[in-house]
């Protein structure tokens, strides 16, 4: 298990949920991998790359072959591939280890120039998951059929979670901008990281913290945002597969 790595150029994507019948990731990955290779990046899949909870076996099997081919193509061009385990693929850890060896990790501490960057899926800071991983898993499995009716059902989940947190904050007179992810990111910045990158929430965001910053790489289930890390720091970007171009992320969520 490797947790300390040095990288000059690294892109971080998360929450592809390959195998999930409604994941749009596989159709967009090929051109993105070309971008990674052409620009001399290494790649980190920051959790939930594969989805065992809400997948169909045929889709998971066929898309897994695509992922293997992608890893091979990157390796042939000298790019390293790291895989950080999330909550939807933790059951596949043994399988992933056979492909990735010590490049499979629970989190990564990346040194890039003078920057110390933590890359982690972030599910352990989700209060629901932390309270009961089994119940969380069960909820995810039960929710799978809802995808048949509304593939963006996770957005409803996110909206519900945000509304619940907002109500709790009003009741407890807490800061509106305080979320479990941002609190966790601040805790990691306090112990010596400049930048913290999580996934899990599916919501891309960039937040300035005291002494550092927090970015969420968003998702590739329905969108295609990613974090680009170079000596200059980390930026959130959007991948447009149709034009095969990366643009600065301009969505909401910046504080």
């Amino acid at each position: 298990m490797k947790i300390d790595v040095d990288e000059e150029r690294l892109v971080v994507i998360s929450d592809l949920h390959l195998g999930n019948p409604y994941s749009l990731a596989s159709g967009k990955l090929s051109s993105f991998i070309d971008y990674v290779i052409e620009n001399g990046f290494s790649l980190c899949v920051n959790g939930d790359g594969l989805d065992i909870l809400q997948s169909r076996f045929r889709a998971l099997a066929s898309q897994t072959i695509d992922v293997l081919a992608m890893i091979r193509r990157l390796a042939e061009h000298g790019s390293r591939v790291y895989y950080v385990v999330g909550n939807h693929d933790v059951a596949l850890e043994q399988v992933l280890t056979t492909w990735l060896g010590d490049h499979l990790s629970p989190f990564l501490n990346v040194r890039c120039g003078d920057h110390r960057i933590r890359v982690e899926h972030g599910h352990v800071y989700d209060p629901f998951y932390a309270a009961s991983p089994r119940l969380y898993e069960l909820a995810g499995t039960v929710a799978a059929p809802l995808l048949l009716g509304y593939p963006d059902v996770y957005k409803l989940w996110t909206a519900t979670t945000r509304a619940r947190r907002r109500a709790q904050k009003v009741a407890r007179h807490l800061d509106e901008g305080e979320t479990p992810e941002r609190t966790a990111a601040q805790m990691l910045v306090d112990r010596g990281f400049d930048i913290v990158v999580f996934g899990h929430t599916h919501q891309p965001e960039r937040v300035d913290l005291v002494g550092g910053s927090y970015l969420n790489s968003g998702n590739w289930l329905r969108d295609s945002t990613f974090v680009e890390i170079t000596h200059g720091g980390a930026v959130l970007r959007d991948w447009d597969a149709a034009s095969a171009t990366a643009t600065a992320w301009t969505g909401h969520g910046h504080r």
Partner: protein
Amino acid sequence: MARRGGVDSVREFVDGQIIVAEGDVSNEMFIVSSGRVRIVKVGPRGPVVLGHIERGEFFGEMALLESLPRHAAAYAVGATRLLVIEPGSLLVRIRRDPTFALEMLHRLSGRLREANMRLLAPQQTSDPDADDTPIWEIGRPVDGSPP
């Protein structure tokens, strides 16, 4: 000294300031939030720099985990800010920040492996005067009684 999040306290030091002295009886461990720390131990020929602790790394865990006096002294290199973890707050820290426990185990495993390699090194030489005591017997008193 400020306390963040109700768990860890923060201490700040100026360049060259002593953080802990060798032999001190105290039981906190420290995470280097910013700056750098020099670890120094007094040997038979005077002080020896054992190494440096960089930003994001930790030290002092032996005193916290085993309640032993400080094995070496620590000095700030440049302006240094430390998170202080006391025995009572360690479990809360691990609950809030579980990856910290894994990082601790990872570092301790690395240090143990290095110590094992150093112990094994004399046995791998062809020097007839090299100490060939098996490592599991090191620490056993001369009279052969259990340590």
